[in-house]
């Protein structure tokens, strides 16, 4: 008899993610689904996912300061960490995508009407693949805070948007990384939509002396943890 086959079964998220309807963040009011959601059974489509390889990442995609003729203005920073699962397993060779505004708080996007200057040397897009131990590393500039229309005098704390694939459809995550000690946290309904203050802290990176490079750039460390899994039995079936 062959060895028993198993497939991963991912653990539940236990209220970590912000509720979709978070009325303080005005845009959720007309976009959050209102019906209760059925739990999607974890079958083949959910436990697999796109494994997007080298073809997606150019040699300078991890360095947002070297994508144009000159260097962008702003404070140069290194942002690095590991992509892991809840069981502490590294997720190797997985695509990490980032995007952010420039040092003045303006995105290179036609809809961004914030009257702050664009920087011809900054697009604000980065990509990399994690290495065999799940490490990623970007070089960029400190993103500026920017105003938005959510409420009167609303400002987003400085953040970098992150997109992670992990190894399965279930592990897919899009989130934002924040910087330590930002005075704008208290009035930001996106950050505060996460109900548990200690869970919000997981989105705040840590300044690191070890990662900081003398006479060159400040270093910030941020690890990203995707859902963990245990093995569950799989009964082989005839191919349909």
């Amino acid at each position: 008899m062959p060895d028993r086959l198993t497939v991963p079964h991912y653990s539940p998220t236990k209220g970590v993610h912000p509720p979709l309807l978070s009325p303080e963040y005005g845009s959720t009011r007309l976009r959050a689904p209102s019906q209760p959601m059925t739990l999607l059974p974890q079958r083949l489509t959910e436990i697999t996912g796109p494994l997007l390889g080298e073809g997606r990442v150019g040699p300078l995609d991890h360095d947002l300061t070297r994508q144009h003729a000159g260097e962008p203005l702003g404070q140069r920073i290194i942002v690095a960490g590991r992509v892991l699962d809840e069981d502490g397993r590294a997720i190797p060779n997985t695509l990490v995508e980032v995007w952010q505004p420039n040092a003045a708080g303006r995105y290179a996007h036609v809809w961004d009407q914030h009257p702050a200057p664009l920087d011809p040397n900054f697009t604000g897009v980065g990509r990399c693949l994690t290495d065999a131990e799940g490490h990623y590393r970007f070089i960029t500039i400190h993103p500026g805070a920017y105003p938005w229309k959510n409420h009167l005098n609303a400002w987003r704390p400085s953040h970098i948007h992150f997109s992670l694939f992990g190894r399965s459809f279930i592990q897919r995550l899009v989130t934002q990384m924040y910087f330590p000690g930002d005075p704008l946290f208290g009035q930001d309904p996106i950050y505060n939509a996460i109900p548990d203050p200690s869970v919000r802290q997981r989105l705040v990176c840590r300044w690191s002396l070890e990662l900081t490079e003398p006479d060159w750039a400040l270093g910030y460390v941020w690890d990203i943890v995707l859902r963990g899994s245990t093995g569950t039995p799989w009964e082989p079936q005839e191919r349909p």
Partner: protein
Amino acid sequence: MTLPLTPSQTVGPFLSVGLTWTDGPNVVPSGSEGAIRITGQVFDGAGNPAPDAMIETWQADPDGGFVHPDDPRESAKSSFRGFGRCATDDEGVFTIVTLKPGPLPTGDGRLEAPHIDVSIFARGLLDRVVTRIYFPDEVALNATDPLLTSLSEEARSTLIAVQERATFRFDIRLQGERETAFFEL
């Protein structure tokens, strides 16, 4: 060891700065043998199109295969990408060019009808929302699909695309009347 799960945040209004790829909508090149188009509009609770959303799709190949180490079956060697992503345009419209997936075993003796998993990201969505596209020409398999049969007729009807020749129409209503059935993962 248990590490603390990283919480989700919205993609925000400027997702197209970072997440769109020229070939994103092409799971297969347009004009490929057997290619189908899946197109639809994303609407908010007021019935207005969402011009700042993105959908991502993930699916098996036409033989029900995945190129993935966690698929426990003897896998057919396939180069099928299986993944599509498309930001919505000014009218909230997205389009994906792909191949129709095959049915899949459940691992406990049953069969799933051909389907595509979909994630929707947008400003105002603090986490992606997830749904599935099913096909109207799979009447027999849809009738026994374990997920479809667990839903109300109303919810089920929001998951079955409408066929117009080689195009399948799949509108996504985030909220309100005929709200799409979304799933917790």
